[in-house]
């Protein structure tokens, strides 16, 4: 039972009490995972989890975010709801003392985790935001119902070169009386001949003029944060905020390197998805997120050193494109004989370190412009190809998000580039928030992909 395994929620119940009896030390948010299922997170009953104490801490950290936000409010802190940019605005907000930032976008997963039993989607439907929008529409229901997170003291949202789903839903929210500080993320373009260009994180580049523009936009965000807190968000604070974010990103980078390359696979796809999600806003507690990810990394290092893993040695390395609306699909990939060997969950700019040797706002502007969503799909596809090579992918899954304005066009561009450049088999699947009805079809496609990858090797 102590060797690395993937176990059910019931198994975790038994294991939890054994660990506790053995002296398991937990933070305030610790406890058996089953209690989350009891409070409505029913999808947990269908998942298989890593059996290590650091994984337990990871899940407990993830599933107690709402409590953390309420605690922050009760302690007199300010709460900032950053929307859409997935990383940058949160780094700025966390740079101020007594400010907690989170992405209401995270409600994306609520219909899955709570098996749609929340009423969020029904509220969104009633407001004219039906299932032709992506699952982020649950955010609208969450705001209106006052569920899942406290009402933020400030809402900031990036628009421009973003998806239409989010832009439309955020505007709907604004029309319902939730004031939003909008800032512009322009479509990232290549520099014209003779135009100065600037390197961005992630191996990208953009015209210096675009970076200057985004920097001016982030000045607006800075001013909004200063007004909220009545405190100056100076460069020293921002630099410290960036340093903390980078500490997290370095740990996560090393975790990804080991988890995606070591044989046998030392950590399953589900925990890796959750670990990567923490990069967006540290699950509302930056310091604790660093501890959580550090412990997970220690466990993966230990397993790697001992040659231990959670999957069969011959599991086929699969690169995954786009987040899955149903977490269960990460388990299904492994049940079909695959293992995650890299991911592009639409927030790769939140994984890359923020440049620390330039002015902080300039660094953040470069990071914001490196967002895969604001650039052409071909840039995103290039990165996917690079990472497939780096992590030794043998197949690629492009997971479509129901209703998303970008998937229909982008998927072909990515699949074509992966096939042409890497000659890897690819498959496209669509994953709804609860995939049970579609699971047989998804399995068939994943099995065929993995079989085809095996035959090639």
């Amino acid at each position, binding site marked *: 039972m102590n060797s690395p395994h993937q176990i059910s929620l019931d198994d975790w119940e038994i294991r939890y009490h054994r660990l506790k009896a053995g002296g398991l030390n937990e933070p305030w948010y610790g406890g058996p995972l089953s209690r989350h299922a009891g409070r409505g997170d029913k999808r947990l009953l269908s998942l298989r989890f890593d059996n290590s104490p650091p994984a337990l801490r990871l899940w407990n950290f993830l599933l107690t975010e709402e409590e953390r936000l309420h605690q922050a409010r009760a302690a007199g802190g300010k709460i900032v709801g950053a929307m859409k940019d997935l990383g940058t605005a949160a780094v700025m907000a966390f740079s101020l003392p007594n400010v907690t930032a989170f992405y209401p976008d995270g409600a994306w997963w609520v219909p899955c985790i709570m098996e749609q039993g929340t009423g969020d989607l029904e509220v969104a439907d009633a*407001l*004219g*935001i039906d299932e*032709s*929008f992506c699952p982020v529409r649950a955010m609208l229901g969450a705001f209106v119902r006052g569920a899942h997170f406290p009402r933020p003291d400030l809402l900031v*949202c990036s*628009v*421009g*070169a*973003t*998806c*239409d*789903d989010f*832009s*439309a*839903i*955020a*505007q*709907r929210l*604004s*029309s319902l009386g939730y004031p*939003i500080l*909008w*800032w*512009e993320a*322009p*479509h990232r*373009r290549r520099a*014209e001949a003779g135009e100065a260009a600037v390197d961005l994180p992630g191996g990208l580049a953009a015209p210096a*003029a675009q970076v200057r*523009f985004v920097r*001016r*936009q982030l000045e*607006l965000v800075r001013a909004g944060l200063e007004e909220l807190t009545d405190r100056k968000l100076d460069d020293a604070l921002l630099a410290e905020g960036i340093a903390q974010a980078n500490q997290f990103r370095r740990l996560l980078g090393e975790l990804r390197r080991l988890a995606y390359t070591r044989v046998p696979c030392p950590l399953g796809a589900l925990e890796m998805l959750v670990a990567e999600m923490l990069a967006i806003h540290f699950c509302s507690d930056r310091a604790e997120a660093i501890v959580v990810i550090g412990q997970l990394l220690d466990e993966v290092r230990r397993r790697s050193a001992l040659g231990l893993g959670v999957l069969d040695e011959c599991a086929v390395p699969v690169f995954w494109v786009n987040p899955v609306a149903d977490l269960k699909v990460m388990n299904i990939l492994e049940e079909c004989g695959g293992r995650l060997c890299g991911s592009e969950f639409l927030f790769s700019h939140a994984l890359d370190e923020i440049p620390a040797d330039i002015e902080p706002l300039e660094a953040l502007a470069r990071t914001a412009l490196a967002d895969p969503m604001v650039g*052409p*799909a*071909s840039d995103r596809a290039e990165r996917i190809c690079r990472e497939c090579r780096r992590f030794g992918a043998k197949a690629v899954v492009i997971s*479509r998000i129901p*209703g*998303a*304005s*970008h*998937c*229909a*066009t*982008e998927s*072909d*561009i990515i699949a074509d580039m992966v096939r042409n450049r890497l000659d890897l088999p690819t498959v496209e699947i669509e994953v709804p928030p609860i995939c049970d009805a579609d699971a047989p079809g998804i399995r068939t496609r994943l099995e065929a992909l993995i079989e085809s990858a095996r035959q090639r090797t």
Partner: protein
Amino acid sequence: MNIDAPGRAWPSVNDMGQPVVYVSPFVPPEWIAAHGMQPRRLVPRAPAMRGMREGQCPFAWQAAASLTATPQPLGNPAAIILTSTCDQMRRAAEIVQARTPSPVFLMNVPATWRSDSARGLYADELARLGLFLQHCGGRQPGQGELAALMLAYERARIALKAAQPMLSAREFARLLCELGSCDAGQLDGFQRAISDACGQQGQRAAGGIDLAIVGGPIAQGELAILDAIELAGGKVVLNACESGQRCLPAPLDAQAASADPLAQLRRMYFDSIPDAFRRPDSLLENYLRTHLAGSGARGVVLIRQVWCDLWHAWTQRLGGLCPLPVLDVVLGDSPEGTTSATNRIQSFIEILRR
């Protein structure tokens, strides 16, 4: 005829040489013409169904399909200008860029509009577009040339607006597209085209059920729904679709234009045209609130393309802006074309009549 529905000919490329093709009302045709080039506003002919994937906006898809088809139905464009005004169009631009030999310019039109930096970005993009056009064979506009052209386009727009009550909604849409496809030398001819159209429409029935139409773009082949409104006894008194008066630029300030024509273009287009992609979208909200109330319309038809999130999100909001009944018409969602939309419009008018 360059159209598969009844009506007069839409701008044809046959005698346009190498046009500069654009789609969005946020691209000023006078800026293209000032470079000695032929602007050509593209309104795709038919809604695309073939090759389209679930989730794709039929209008954006058809625009991309028209621009990448071989042989090229648009002649051999000297340049193509698309805009970042929505995710679907921005991504369509990437496809067009990859599949056509014509140079493609993706113009960043900011969604935000209240900050100086956003307004400055639009102006910078106009300047960048100017350089691009010069690379594509255009010439640098001469001193005073742009301001003079702006005045000429303004006169044509004033004439078009004055003629609107005499024109069917389809004719107005056609003439708007024609105006956006005029170069400097064709504007006189355009005035004649307005007179001709008014003459032909002289028998337009008085009375009818006054309706407002609101929404995004409509492909040529879908304009049958405008005919359907009129055939069913309706009359479009406010066209707040992309093919209507909502997307006309603000009136020109000729004095300001002679001092700084580019700043004036920015004011007329970027600062003024209300649209669903703008954040916040208070320009559109205020426009609709004012014009719906002032139009005397008895009902509103929201016309949107399937999978267009930006206009879809207006279905519920429209009802909150005015006390009028709203009919939600979705285009491009069925292979039967506009038949079901037409039937629904007829029923809607029938109900309003009672």
